[in-house]
């Protein structure tokens, strides 16, 4: 597979053995689409950090660890952001950080990989797999995940009503390594 060959090429060129790569926050993106009355309302987290570690001889063993500062959420609208920071949604005062961590080997899927992992958010941890593809220029990866906000208690009481805000949240990310 061409992408995988390129990927391995990049890894071999940059590192000989297992290595850690940090994400460059300024050129990386972490976005989400909430479902509001059946339509997508996009938002993003502006501060997050993480590393990917892998052994170039076994790329499927790649592991990710990403820490997200939940308070940095931004949907371009002050009232909505305040609501999302409140206890009914992310409760950023009590749970300022979210963590996504790999917990097993990836498996090849189409042009990319599907990687198992766990998301810790608002005091709860549940499996949330991600799908990842290497960027063609070798500068990083992009990928996506779908999660159920209600499993993490994001939107309690009246806000749990799935008709106003749907339970499924689409997450998309673009992670670029800091150039060695």
């Amino acid at each position, binding site marked *: 597979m061409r992408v995988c060959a390129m990927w391995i090429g990049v890894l071999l060129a940059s590192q000989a053995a297992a290595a850690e790569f940090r994400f460059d926050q300024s050129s990386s993106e972490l976005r989400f689409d909430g479902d509001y*009355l059946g*339509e997508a309302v*996009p938002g993003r987290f502006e501060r997050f950090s993480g590393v990917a570690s892998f052994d170039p001889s076994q790329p499927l063993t790649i592991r990710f660890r990403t820490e997200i500062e939940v308070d940095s959420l931004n*949907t*371009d609208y002050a009232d*909505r952001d305040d*609501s999302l920071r409140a206890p009914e949604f992310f409760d950023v005062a009590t749970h300022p950080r979210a963590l996504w961590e790999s917990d097993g080997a990836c498996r090849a899927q189409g042009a990319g990989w599907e990687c198992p992992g766990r998301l810790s958010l608002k005091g709860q941890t549940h499996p949330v797999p991600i799908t990842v593809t290497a960027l063609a220029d070798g500068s990083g990866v992009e990928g996506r995940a779908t999660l159920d906000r209600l499993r993490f208690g994001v939107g309690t009481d*009246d806000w749990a009503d799935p*008709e*106003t805000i749907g339970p499924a949240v689409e997450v998309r990310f673009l992670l670029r390594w800091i150039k060695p």
Partner: protein
Amino acid sequence: MHAGRYDTLAIVLHWTMALLILLTMGVGFWMSDLKPSPDTIKIYNWHKWFGLSVLALAVVRLIWRATHRPPPLPAHTPRWQRLAASGGHWGLYGLMLAMPLTGWLQNSASGFPLSWFGLFKVPALIARDRQAFEFWQDVHEMLAITLAALIALHLAAALKHHFVDRDGLLWRMWPRRKPAVEEA
């Protein structure tokens, strides 16, 4: 046949819009202090749906106005009253368009999807933007207060003509014709 009466379309538009505008404004002033909740979202949506309906009707109404002459004012109407009536009416026409349009702009800047009674999507007029939202929110609010004042003046003028001047002006726009007894 009563001369100097608005035609049926104009009368239907006037009263339908009067009802819709008062409802939309009432909900608008009330909802701005509500705490965020799914019910608040529903109330906001009703406000938006009513407002968009006002906009559609205002377009029809302005087409009517551009193609018809309103019945003449009583011959003895002083010049300042003619000017005030004309200015007030054009102010109302302008706000019938400007109120929904600034609400639509405000909603576009907030990034909330917009529909008309959930039946079809209404596109955003401008991109999501915090500053644009605050600007259009302020304009929408100032225009709402202006509109409330103009409606109060409009109502006061209509009542004065009817009960003080007793010049029958109100019958131009009343849904029923002037009773024959009074006409005699």
